[in-house]
């Protein structure tokens, strides 16, 4: 089914592989790009949401003073006012739009208020009183699993379970000389997209509903709005507005935001705006799942990797939302990109009374990669081996089997990334022996507080949705000719800042042999574009790209036929070179591709061809814990250099070398943008970012003054290294790049800290307090 297009070097390329300017650069730089906030409609209304102040409580009574509200022109809505189903579909259908009998997290929507101004909607809160009876809550996933009395999801609070089984771990540990066992904790990470969540619902009377908004997956929103309003899907139209960052945070949350706005609009029959403030956004919308990971690794003194045993407890918050899919990725990535015959991974997604957690760049994998890569480093350390050499012994190569039994027969660039990152960073020269705590203290006495260190991680990324999401792995595309000889294409995947429009335009330009400047993308509107599946899992370039290739191929045939007819040449004897169509045998130029498209238009009108694609089959047998988990894998080595102040625990990051095997860089410039942005977000995860909850389960760090992400001042030099080991299933050999830049930074960073000052962290982020406390603990342990 998958063939590699004959395509060898950049010399032949018209668009692919070039550093072309982003299609959306100008409007974003000038500020002209219209975001949800910029849109307005006649007679628009505003929405305020009354949310639960409790983490877990029964709703006894909702008293609304309708008389006063009516006199103020305010309309209130509760679960009873939902015309369709009170369910926001994601995977398990456990997530209500408005709580009816029980609230399960602080900030859960209970009542909506719609008024002509936000001020009025806010004022009207006092005319609604909700009586609750608090019930005991649980916030820790280990505690919540099989909790004897607190029940959030079915009997045991476990909403999803995945496993990996390979060989016999107990035998593996018995054969090991050294067994390393630790419990790790990772924090909730906020997406901190520059544009907060927001949707505007515009009803066409009772007949249909249009929702505009900032989102990744308009077709998800279409389904939810249709089901909430009890409307046919074809009467619900979702239009994506320019989206100011998403990172997974706008995968499922717009289901809620859009449906709340749509319910409001349904009740008042007027356009309703629902734009979240930063505080409301951080307090009530999804974040990266916090996790507890128990990790056990067995090695021999000769450096054999004998056994890996992992238990993952993913804290899903109050509703499952995307947890089954997130957990799948966590389980598949838990043992790393290594050959190991004895593996046992048990992964649980456990519901608690925190805000529902969700998708975030890396999707469950950063939570297990931090422990996994810490363990690899500790294992290497325990046998006195260089951590990069130790990894090199075990990393997957072409033809190897993953720990879950998948043979990877092509496109395995991990070794190349390792070699390149090591070479460009000057690894062996920079990597000094890790000091003892006595040495650190000795240096302190001489006034030397700052020590440098360097650390590494090697990771893999299962591209696209994989076996757990294969039903969404389809992708559609249209390509349409315009009378002026330009081309317009439509896909259902979205631009959220990652550069998709640019990259897909390059693919269309390349396929048709037309100038990049003459290719445009239709804005994403569910009534006009095909469903290309969700814009998640680093899949848009590949899946939409392949559907577009399919459509372009058909259009190319059409063009060739028209040209052959008009110029009386053989359709098999023409080719495209430098935007021109020419005869192959005579090399005679016939006309430009753009003129040929005009020709097609003149004859056939504004014809659109439809392309289609589906990801190669994947299958995972969870009973056996083995299977072909993903269609393809991308690979990456990160090396991080730090300077640590051993007295105060501050960690400055000096350099990041990020080497990524992406198959093919369609646009190296946007690719580097992804690597730099992802690395920085990974640095945030490892070093700075942590949502702090109160003991009552409320988000305390609810703004960007208390939830700290790295600024330009914390940005190190990021050295992007691109490796291209093509994958036959991807357009031009491309795989994905969206997520992996973030995934392996945290452990490379903590491994660098260990190299600098000799202490290990089991919890991220590596705040000064944690690094300092680890140093103090070591001083006490070793009594120096």
């Amino acid at each position, binding site marked *: 089914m998958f063939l590699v297009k004959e395509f060898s070097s950049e010399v032949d390329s018209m668009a692919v592989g070039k550093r072309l300017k982003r299609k959306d650069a100008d409007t974003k730089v000038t500020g002209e790009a219209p975001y949800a906030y910029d849109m307005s409609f006649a007679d628009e209304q505003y929405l305020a949401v009354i949310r639960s102040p409790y983490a877990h409580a029964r709703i006894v009574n909702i008293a609304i003073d309708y008389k006063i509200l009516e006199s103020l022109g305010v309309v209130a809505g509760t679960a009873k006012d939902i015309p369709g189903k009170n369910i926001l579909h994601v995977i398990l259908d456990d997530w209500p739009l408005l709580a009816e009998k029980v609230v399960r997290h602080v900030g859960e929507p209970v009542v909506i208020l719609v008024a002509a*101004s*936000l*001020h009025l909607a*806010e004022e009207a809160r006092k005319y609604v009183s909700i009586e609750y009876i608090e019930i005991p809550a649980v916030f820790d996933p280990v505690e919540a699993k099989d909790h004897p009395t607190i029940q959030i999801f079915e009997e045991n609070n476990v909403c999803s379970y995945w496993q990996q089984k390979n060989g016999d771990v107990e035998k593996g540990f018995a054969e090991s000389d050294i067994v390393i066992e630790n419990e790790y904790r990772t924090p909730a990470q906020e997406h901190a997209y520059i544009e907060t969540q927001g949707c505007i619902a515009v009803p066409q009377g009772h007949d249909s509903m249009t929702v505009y908004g900032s989102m990744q997956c308009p077709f998800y929103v279409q389904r939810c709005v249709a089901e909430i309003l009890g409307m046919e899907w074809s009467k619900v139209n979702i239009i994506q507005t320019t989206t100011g960052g998403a990172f997974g945070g706008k995968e499922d949350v717009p289901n809620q935001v859009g449906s709340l706005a749509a319910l409001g609009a349904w009740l008042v029959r007027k356009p309703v705006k629902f734009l979240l403030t930063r*505080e409301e956004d951080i307090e009530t919308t999804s974040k990266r799942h916090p996790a507890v990971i128990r990790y056990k690794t067995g090695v021999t003194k000769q450096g054999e990797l004998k056994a890996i045993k992992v238990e993952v407890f993913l804290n899903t918050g109050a509703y499952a939302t995307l947890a089954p899919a997130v957990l799948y990725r966590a389980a598949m990535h838990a043992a790393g990109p290594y050959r190991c015959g004895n593996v046992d991974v048990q992964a649980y997604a456990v519901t608690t009374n925190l805000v529902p957690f969700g998708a975030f760049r890396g999707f469950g994998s950063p939570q297990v990669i931090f422990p996994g890569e810490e363990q690899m480093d500790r294992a290497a350390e325990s046998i006195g081996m260089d951590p990069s050499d130790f990894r090199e012994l075990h990393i997957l190569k072409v033809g190897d089997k993953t720990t879950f039994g998948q043979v990877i027969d092509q496109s395995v660039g991990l070794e190349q990334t390792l070699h390149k990152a090591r070479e460009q960073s000057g690894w062996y020269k920079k990597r000094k022996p890790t000091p003892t705590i006595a040495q650190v203290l000795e240096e302190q006495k001489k*006034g030397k507080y700052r020590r440098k260190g360097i650390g590494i991680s090697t990771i893999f990324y299962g591209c696209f949705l994989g076996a757990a999401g294969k039903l969404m792995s389809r992708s559609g595309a249209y390509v349409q000719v315009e009378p002026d000889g330009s081309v317009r294409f439509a896909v259902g995947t979205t631009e959220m800042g990652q550069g998709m429009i640019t990259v897909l335009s390059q693919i269309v330009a390349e396929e048709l042999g037309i100038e990049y400047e003459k290719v445009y993308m239709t804005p994403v509107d569910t009534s006009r574009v095909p469903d290309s599946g969700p814009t998640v899992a680093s899949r848009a370039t590949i899946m939409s790209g392949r559907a577009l290739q399919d459509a372009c191929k058909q259009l190319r045939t059409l063009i060739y036929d028209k040209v052959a007819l008009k110029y009386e040449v053989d359709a098999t004897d023409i080719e495209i070179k430098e935007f021109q169509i020419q005869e192959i045998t005579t090399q005679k130029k016939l006309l430009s591709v753009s003129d040929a498209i005009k020709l097609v238009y003149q004859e056939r009108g504004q014809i659109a061809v439809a392309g289609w694609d589906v990801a190669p089959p994947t299958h995972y047998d969870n009973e056996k814990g083995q299977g072909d988990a993903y269609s393809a894998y991308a690979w990456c080595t990160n090396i991080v250099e730090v300077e640590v102040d051993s*007295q*105060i*625990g*501050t960690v400055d990051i000096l350099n990041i070398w990020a080497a990524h095997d992406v198959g093919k860089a369609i646009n190296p410039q946007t690719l580097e943008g992804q690597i730099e942005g992802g690395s920085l977000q990974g640095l945030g995860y490892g070093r*700075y970012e942590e949502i*702090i909850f109160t003991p009552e389960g409320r988000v*305390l*760090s609810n703004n960007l*003054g*208390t939830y*700290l992400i*790295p*600024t*330009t*001042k*914390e940005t190190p030099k990021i050295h992007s290294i691109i490796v291209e080991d093509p994958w036959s299933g991807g357009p031009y050999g491309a795989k994905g790049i969206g997520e992996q830049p973030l995934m392996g930074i945290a452990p490379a960073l903590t491994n660098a800290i260990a190299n600098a000052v000799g202490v290990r962290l089991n919890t991220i982020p590596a*705040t*000064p*307090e944690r690094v*300092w*406390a680890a140093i*103090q603990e070591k001083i006490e342990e070793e009594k120096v």
Partner: protein
Amino acid sequence: MYSNEILSPTSLKEALAIKDQYVNDIFPLAGGTDVLVMVRNKLGVWGESPVLLNLNNIPKLNFILETDSNIEIGPLVTHTQLLESPIIQKHVPALIKAISIIGSPQIRNLGTLTGNVCRASPAADTLATLYARDTQVQIQTVNNSKLVPIKEFITGPGQINIPENGLVTKIVIPKLEGYFGDYISLRQRYALSIVVVSIAVEALLSKDRSRMDDIRISLGAVAPTIVRATKTEILLKSNAFTKNLIEKAEKMIIEESRPITDIRSNKRYRKAMTGVLLGRILREILSH
């Protein structure tokens, strides 16, 4: 919903008269970097949006003056102005160090020293140095003007001691000839972040450099207000200035400080850091 009534007098006299009339129902506005956020969030002294007394149309409130014994700073002087002022650079170098890391360039361009003082945050960057300098705050009403020591002016987090019809019209920083001044702050990142713990020192060595003739140490973010480490100051003033004494001082300041755990850091770390930071400054002095 954030609209406010704003009164913009053009003279100090007029401003004082307005304050006298509105008393607690009006709030002075200079740079607005904090006040406007509070208005938006309906925080602090108001459940509802207050009337604002905009002082920005009174150019006479914008001055940096050097007198024989003091530096005087008007209420509209921004952080950026202070950073660029040769007077401040020469006479209060520790303040330059503190101000250079406040917020971001945008915040420093708008925010004022007087605003920082009146917000009375225990984590405010400028305050540690002002306490070490025994700075005075001039409070004016329609018919009165007086100077109040900063430690009496600030009474708690966000709390100041000012008559309901009073405005701060000047900050007076005494010059300290021959002193070595320094300021160090720890924070979670290098820009747009709040102090975890900070220390300001003003030290005068004896001519033979064997003793401290005077030392003032103030700590930020370890108590409800900036505090002076008086026990440690006494220890340092009453003994020969040696490496050994520095070690004793480090221990004493850790004993003396009483920080809390909050969203930004924890008690144990903050306490330990007071010693580390003091040690660094004292060793710097000793090595010079």
